[in-house]
């Protein structure tokens, strides 16, 4: 019975899409990431700099023109190397903000420099993706974020500490060098994902 209640209370039901804020100075990469996310049934807002990202998120002092609901961002994907503010600096600003620190941030880079990866993960990045980003990366990321949101709900409702999120971050950093191929073409079906997550995390009395 409690499992059914949790299903009803999830904010990310199949009626709602993940809203992703993508940050990249490259036109080409913005267009590609936008398409990858749309195919994966995510709502996308793509901006070209860290400064514009902060503006969109309402962090730069300027009043955001969007309402709170429209603004709700479930995931931020940012390029690492950008002129002006780097992805790392953007990550720090987001994690340093009480309003936004809970939003998962993923760093993308064409260079796989271990020190860079470590620094980003230490600063709170959920994952580090090597460019060019593939559809399988986005699908895996979406699954991970949805599971993370489900875990959050479980933690709040069960009032238990959960180690599973920490383990997931470690799993992700270990999986950096792996590519995950999706066998079939992706379909917009978040409902089955939620059901799968429920099966993996049954409430324990």
């Amino acid at each position, binding site marked *: 019975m409690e499992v059914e209640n949790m299903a009803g209370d999830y904010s990310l039901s199949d009626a709602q899409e993940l809203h992703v804020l993508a940050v990249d100075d490259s036109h*080409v990469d913005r267009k590609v990431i936008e*398409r990858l996310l749309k195919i994966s049934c995510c709502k996308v807002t793509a901006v070209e700099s860290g400064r514009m990202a902060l503006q969109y998120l309402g962090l730069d002092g300027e009043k955001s023109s969007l309402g709170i609901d429209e603004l709700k961002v479930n995931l931020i994907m940012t390029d690492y190397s950008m002129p002006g503010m780097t992805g790392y600096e953007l990550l720090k600003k987001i994690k340093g903000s009480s309003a936004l620190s809970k939003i998962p941030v993923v760093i993308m880079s*064409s260079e796989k420099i271990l020190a860079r990866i470590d620094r980003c993960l230490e600063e709170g990045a959920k994952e580090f993706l090597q*460019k*060019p980003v593939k*559809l399988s990366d986005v699908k895996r990321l979406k699954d991970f974020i949805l599971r993370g949101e489900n875990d959050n709900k479980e933690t709040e409702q069960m009032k238990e500490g959960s180690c599973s999120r920490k383990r997931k971050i470690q799993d992700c950093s270990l999986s950096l060098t792996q590519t995950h191929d999706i066998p079939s073409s992706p379909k917009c079906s978040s409902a089955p994902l939620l059901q799968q997550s429920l099966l993996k995390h049954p409430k324990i009395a």
Partner: protein
Amino acid sequence: MQRQAAYMRRSLFDQEYLDEQFIQLEELQDDANPNFVEEVVNLYFTDSARFIRNIELALANGPYDFNKLDDMMYRFKGSSSSIGAKRVKSECSQFQEYCNQRNIEGCKRAFQGVKQEYATLKSKLDTYFQIAREAS
């Protein structure tokens, strides 16, 4: 016509002008977005013209800022990588090597290689998309 397009596509991969990433882009194309690959490639051409012009200007006169040159090439290489431009990417890496060595003559030579590969790729892709469009 379709066979011609398929043949041309095959040879672009065989001759390593393009790599796996181009196929990843093709997989993002569907009936609702039938020209996605061509749109991305056209965006790449527009951006590339700017990157190349800026690098050309930076190489024209000393003093040479190798960090800046490397950074500019890094961005161009990134775009090239995103569309699967294998040979162009390789020439970009060569340029970056010379930047690391602070070798300006090497950079200038490598830049000629970058421009050449880019021009060849652009010409081949322009032809390919034209044939592919006529075939559909």
